[in-house]
């Protein structure tokens, strides 16, 4: 029914989809598997008309079509349920649905139709309910019902179960079965191997923008699927310079529990971790499994009511904010460079103050309570960092946004390493960074650990985790697995844990 032939999409130098081909036949549930950044979202956005391909063709019932916009996609017969819902909180179910259907429909008819459809598919809904009062699972039903009212032949579901409770997920699976029995096709995006095995008739696996495999999930084992997804074909990196780590524990987490701050945030459950002086602990996992929440808990951007749940160098600091934790020796590099670790429109020297105004207040700020910024000192430290990390830039002190991703990341790493922190937490150290800079950053992380600091590296890049970690833990669904020795753990084991199969 739908056929994608050698479709390609580039963003600048990055090839997000490299001649990807895919075929979905009538009445099947087709899984699209892959790690984050593998190109799944880019592909479905092209199918739904939010992005335009740079090359290749989309065939619909055998005929080539163009999909210039989502509304065109809908009238063609392609519907999509996004991971992040597009509903107005203050409007009712019927009003939200009416908005997407256009003017010619009477809102009362829509309410009645929505009720019928929702009952028919086992997705009970009251059309007058205000979206803001609904649970996440119910909101998803609204999205699905809205999609079904347009009578689509192909429904794209983007990580539908990531926001659902297990019971809600089971109900969703029943609905999907029903849709399949009616002859509708479903393109199901997920990284949860058990779901894919249970539900899907076919699977296409993407890795680094390319199709690396196609299979019938029922014929495969979870391990072989995980293999394809994380790419065990890439040979293991040889690790050097690793010895027995016997240092004392510098960073300790004890039964950390954190409720989800928003419907799309992940809840953290019973996280325990102890990182000793001299070691790098790598945290692997597919994005959206609690990594950014975990980072916030470690850095103190999210504080806990239990002060004893986090310890830095033996000091309890669970309730302390990020500045206090920096003063205890912590240093942090967030996943987003622009807008989180650095302010785009501020200069490098100003971005130096951003992270170190507290820990270096003695040398950076003057005149007591006035807090006058000491420009001379800050400029010279900025210069030192840029030389140390080989930051390539135009001009003496350019805006952060003027640097390339790799150079800015080197500066941000250098800003933290320059303090010689006893604890370093890095989220995605080399995301979108060129190979040379990535190597420099990884080396710097290892060197810091060898000099006696405790380092946590959160990364979705398994190659990177394997290369630099002494011990490896996996984050999945808000749980952190027990760290295991990097020498003995295999990619298959990591892949299974990433897919949520802790016992596999």
């Amino acid at each position, binding site marked *: 029914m739908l056929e994608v032939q050698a479709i390609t999409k580039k963003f600048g130098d990055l090839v997000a989809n490299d001649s990807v081909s895919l075929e979905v036949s009538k009445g099947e549930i087709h899984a699209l598997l892959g790690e984050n950044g593998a190109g799944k979202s880019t592909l479905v956005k092209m199918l739904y008309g939010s992005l335009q391909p740079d090359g290749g063709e989309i065939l619909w019932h055998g005929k080539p079509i163009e999909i210039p916009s989502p509304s065109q996609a809908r009238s063609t017969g392609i519907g999509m349920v996004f991971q992040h819902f597009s509903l107005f909180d203050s409007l009712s179910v019927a009003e939200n649905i009416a908005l997407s259907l256009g003017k010619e429909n009477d809102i009362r008819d829509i309410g009645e139709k929505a009720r019928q459809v929702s009952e028919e598919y086992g997705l009970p809904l009251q059309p007058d309910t205000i979206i803001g009062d609904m649970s996440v699972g119910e909101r998803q039903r609204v999205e699905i019902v809205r999609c079904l009212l347009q009578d689509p032949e192909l429904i794209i579901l983007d990580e539908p179960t990531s926001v659902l409770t297990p019971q809600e997920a089971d109900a969703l699976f029943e609905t999907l079965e029903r849709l399949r029995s009616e002859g509708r096709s479903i393109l199901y995006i997920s990284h949860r191997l058990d779901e894919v095995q249970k539900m899907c008739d076919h699977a296409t696996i993407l890795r680094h923008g390319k199709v690396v495999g196609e299979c019938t999930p029922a014929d495969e084992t979870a391990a072989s699927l995980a293999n394809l997804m994380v790419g065990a074909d890439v040979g293991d990196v040889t690790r050097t310079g690793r010895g027995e780590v016997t240092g004392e524990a510098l960073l300790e987490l004890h039964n950390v529990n954190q409720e989800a701050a928003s419907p799309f945030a992940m809840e953290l459950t019973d996280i325990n971790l102890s990182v000793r002086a001299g070691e790098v602990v790598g945290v692997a996992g597919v994005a959206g499994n609690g990594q950014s929440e975990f980072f916030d808990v470690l850095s103190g951007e999210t504080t806990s009511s239990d002060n004893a749940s986090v310890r830095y160098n033996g000091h309890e600091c669970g309730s302390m904010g990020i500045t206090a934790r920096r003063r205890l020796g912590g240093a942090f590099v967030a996943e987003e460079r622009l807008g989180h670790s650095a302010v785009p429109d501020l200069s490098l020297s*100003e971005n130096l103050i951003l992270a170190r105004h507290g820990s270096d207040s003695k040398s950076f700020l003057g005149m007591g309570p006035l807090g006058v*910024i000491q420009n001379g000192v800050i400029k010279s430290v900025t210069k030192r960092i840029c030389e140390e990390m080989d930051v390539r830039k135009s001009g003496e002190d350019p805006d952060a946004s003027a640097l390339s991703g790799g150079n800015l990341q080197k500066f941000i790493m250098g800003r933290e390493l320059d303090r010689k922190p006893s604890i370093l937490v890095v989220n995605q150290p080399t995301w979108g960074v060129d190979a040379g800079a990535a190597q420099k950053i990884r080396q710097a992380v290892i060197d810091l650990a060898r000099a006696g600091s405790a380092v946590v590296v959160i990364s979705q890049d398994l190659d990177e985790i394997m290369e630099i970690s002494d011990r490896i833990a996996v984050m999945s669904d808000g749980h952190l697995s027990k760290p295991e020795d990097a020498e003995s753990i295999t990619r298959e084991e990591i892949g299974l844990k990433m897919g949520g199969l802790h016992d596999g």
Partner: protein
Amino acid sequence: MRIELERRAAHSVVFSALSPFIALGLTLVAGIILFSALGLNPATALFTYFIEPLTEVWSLHELIIKATPLILIAVGLSVCFSSGNWNIGAEGQLVMGAIAGSILPILFPDQAGFWVLPLMLVMAMAGGAGWAAIPAYLKNRFGANEILTSLMLVYVAQLFLDWLVRGHWRNPAGYNFPESRTYTDGQILPEMFSSGPAHYGALLALIAVIIAWFMMGKTIKGFQVKVIGQAPRAGRFAGFSARKMTLAAFLISGALAGLAGISEVAGAIQQLRPVVSPGYGFAAIIVAFLGRLNPLGVMAAGLILALSYLGGEAAQISLGISDKVGRVFQGVLLFFVLASDTLIHYRIKFISSRKHA
């Protein structure tokens, strides 16, 4: 066809600096068209508007008097806007400042001493800050949109003042006019020069400009304002609290609006009336943006806008055109300022939608 704004990869430093001047130039062009359409000679009209008020001593005094509240308020707003908080209710905070500052001269008219005037100023600042604290609290506690709440509180404050001067605070010896008693010497901001009525409120505005310039440009506090305004997530990473910043930004801008209120009442008007401001609190929004949210720029912009008030009055008298034309000028100016700023960062893109069967 649809029109989209596409972010430019880099923005031109030259045009960023030039943008207020480009906006002024375009406003003048719009003025020429406007006056021509009204059947006036644009050259005479623009001369009356922008040059004549600068040629006489008394009108220079008027210029300072009009610029004082604009600059005081706009300095506070420039800090507030830089932090990403949108206080649109400075007019109401001005009114509440004028009321709070007038408690002493109206309810305790017999109190005299060197401390009376300073205390009036402090109470006015507290009044303005207190009124501004309401939208800040509502934003922090309930996530209420501060643009709406601060704007709506303007009308509450104006009606409260109206009620006071027609009721309890009406001058007992004032023949039932809706006015308070007039203030006496120790309660009035003295004149600065013998040549005219410009009072010491102008000095307060100058001090506010200098303090704000120092704070925003040189200290960690000003840095905090910039970071939270530009990138809230990075502000959290730096350990700055956005909630505290919202409160502080509203308190500062409210206090300065309150100070502007008392400097009007104790300087130029010397009593409370149902209306104490011709919309300074709103015009100051234009001043803040025209001054590029920079305290020194705000001072220049305040003088330019004060000139447009004076020019409006002059044009009304000598050319007989409505004072609404002055408002139109201010609106046109703000429009061009914001448009130039937007076009520095974005380019306009026309997208044709192809129809498919």
